């Protein structure tokens, strides 16, 4: 697949050289414009996928450390080595978790991190106040067993919410965008969560209404859909973010099959500066559809993890943390 892609790029490059006008590619790119809906909005509709094995943050060690970009070959090598780790045998006594077969790896980008700002590819430092609070939370958690209650698990495992689409997942990062006059909806396959985005300039909900997906308002700037989201439930925290977070997303169609998707987290009581992630969304053209993801209806694992821990206690064993239960 990747070889075919490189061949295609090579052919395009040769065509440009033969054409004798290297500048025409930029001109052609500028000329491309997305279609319009019947009522005149840029048309973003369709099925999209943002799976990637590129890490959120640039690793501090290993082959991706210390550089902003890598070659296509290096990206493929990284992708394969990541995939191999999923098939590693679990520790003794650990039932293990989903192996590579169950994971949707996604192509690695030639960037070494999804974070594009700050330029070091790392999420900025957390404020001392928030760090102290997170340390308290970790300490409180460590004083409990791995599965004393369902509240000991993340909203992810509880099938409540997987957060906004920019966060992604290790499988099924599938989305379908719907539009009607005055609305865009980014429908997320996981937990069948719709991100409903009115475009009519109305104000956000009152602060007293917190929601797992926040409350989104949008507008078009040229061909870019800009979405501003506030009103996050405190438990919907992402990497320590607070309910005061302002999430700004930008969906820019750059060709028929690609959305340049970026989000910026602005949350000054938590992060010492804003940070931006770029996670491209690719159009699904092979007929694969967004399926019904009935997570809660089939969440037998929740009952089994709790019941297993109670059985351990009854037998005089200390329940152990399942390494795989809380993966993202």
């Amino acid at each position, binding site marked *: 697949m990747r070889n075919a892609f490189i061949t295609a790029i090579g052919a395009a490059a040769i065509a440009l050289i033969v054409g004798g006008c290297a500048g025409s590619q930029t001109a052609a790119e500028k000329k491309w414009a997305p279609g319009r809906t019947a009522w005149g909005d840029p048309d973003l509709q369709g099925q999209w996928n943002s799976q990637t094995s590129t890490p959120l943050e640039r690793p501090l060690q290993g082959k991706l450390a210390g550089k902003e970009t890598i070659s296509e070959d290096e990206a493929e090598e990284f992708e394969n080595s990541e995939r191999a780790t999923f098939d590693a045998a679990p520790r003794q006594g650990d039932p293990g978790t989903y192996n590579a077969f169950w994971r949707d790896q996604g192509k690695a980008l030639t960037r070494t991190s999804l974070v594009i700002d700050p330029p070091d590819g790392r999420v900025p430092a957390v404020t001392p106040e928030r760090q102290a609070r997170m340390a308290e939370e970790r300490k409180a958690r460590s004083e409990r067993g791995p599965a004393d*209650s369902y509240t000991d698990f993340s909203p992810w495992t509880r099938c409540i*919410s997987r957060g906004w689409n920019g966060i992604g997942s290790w499988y099924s990062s599938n989305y379908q965008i719907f539009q009607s*006059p005055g*609305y865009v909806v980014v429908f997320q396959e996981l937990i069948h*969560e719709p991100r409903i985005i009115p475009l009519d300039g109305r104000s956000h909900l009152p602060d007293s209404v917190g929601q797992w997906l926040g409350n989104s308002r949008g507008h078009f700037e040229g061909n870019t859909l800009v979405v501003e989201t506030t009103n996050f439930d405190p438990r919907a925290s992402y990497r320590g973010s607070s309910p005061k977070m302002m999430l700004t997303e930008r969906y820019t169609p750059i060709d028929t099959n690609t959305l340049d998707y970026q989000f910026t987290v602005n949350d000054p009581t938590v992060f010492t500066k804003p940070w931006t992630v770029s996670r491209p969304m690719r159009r699904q053209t092979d007929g694969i559809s967004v399926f*019904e993801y009935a997570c*809660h209806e089939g969440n037998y694992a929740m009952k089994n993890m709790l019941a297993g821990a*109670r059985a351990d206690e009854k037998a005089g064993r200390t329940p152990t943390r399942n390494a795989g239960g809380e993966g993202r």
Partner: protein
Amino acid sequence: MNFWNRHNGTVLMTLTAAAIVALAIATALPTAQAPANAFPRMPDGKPNLSGIWQANNTANWDVLAHPARQGPMTALGAAFSVPGGLGVVEGNEIPYKPEALAKKQENASHWLAADPEIRCFQPGVPRATYMPHPFQIVQSSGTNDMLITYEFASASRIVRMNSKADSPIDTWMGWSRGSWDGDTLVVDVTSFNGQAWFDRAGNYQSDRLHVVERYTPIGPDAFRYEATIDDPTLYSRPWKISMPIYRRLEKDAQLVEYKCVEFVEELMYGEFVKKPRQQTH
């Protein structure tokens, strides 16, 4: 041709042009600014069902006519008792086969333990339509898919327009394919897993359920919802429900999350929680 005739011709042409302009204005007005009493339309002329909608009846308690009765929890008193209702089933009868009727009665007597709504499971179709929560239709044009997303449990369904594709798997909310019959949106829904119910009275379905819905505008802010329900495993013939659905007219009406999973975890998992309980956040 003399002068008068030529002059006459000019007058005629001017009049014709004026008439064309007048006609253009007359025909343009209804689309540019629809009369207040007309259902909104899309640029392609189809009724625009986009918006926030809600039923206003007691069908989620019982799709058949029923008197008011005391609720299941003594402590909740009058606040959560059951309102009476006229029912939404044509002829007020569900043609259960005899053996299927017994199961319906068993469901009713074990309602709290068996109704999927109690556990925040996706409600299926048509029940999602008449639960006491709003839902939103996101309608585009042409062959673009529609989304119908319900406040309850964020249950959602994609309506594939003019699609022949079949579902690869059975689901709670079914596989919806839409088409237009004049001003009526017709949605054919198949591939149910058969686990959803129709109401809190134990009316139920099997995985052979086939629902054909019709959404027909009946005023600027209402449409008639009809669903023909067939399931040869359980019913001796197809049956039909019908009800008006109303637009939520509040300024900035919007769905507010009702992610009920966290409301049912104690019910579903409480017996497996470590005792004595410790304070968690």
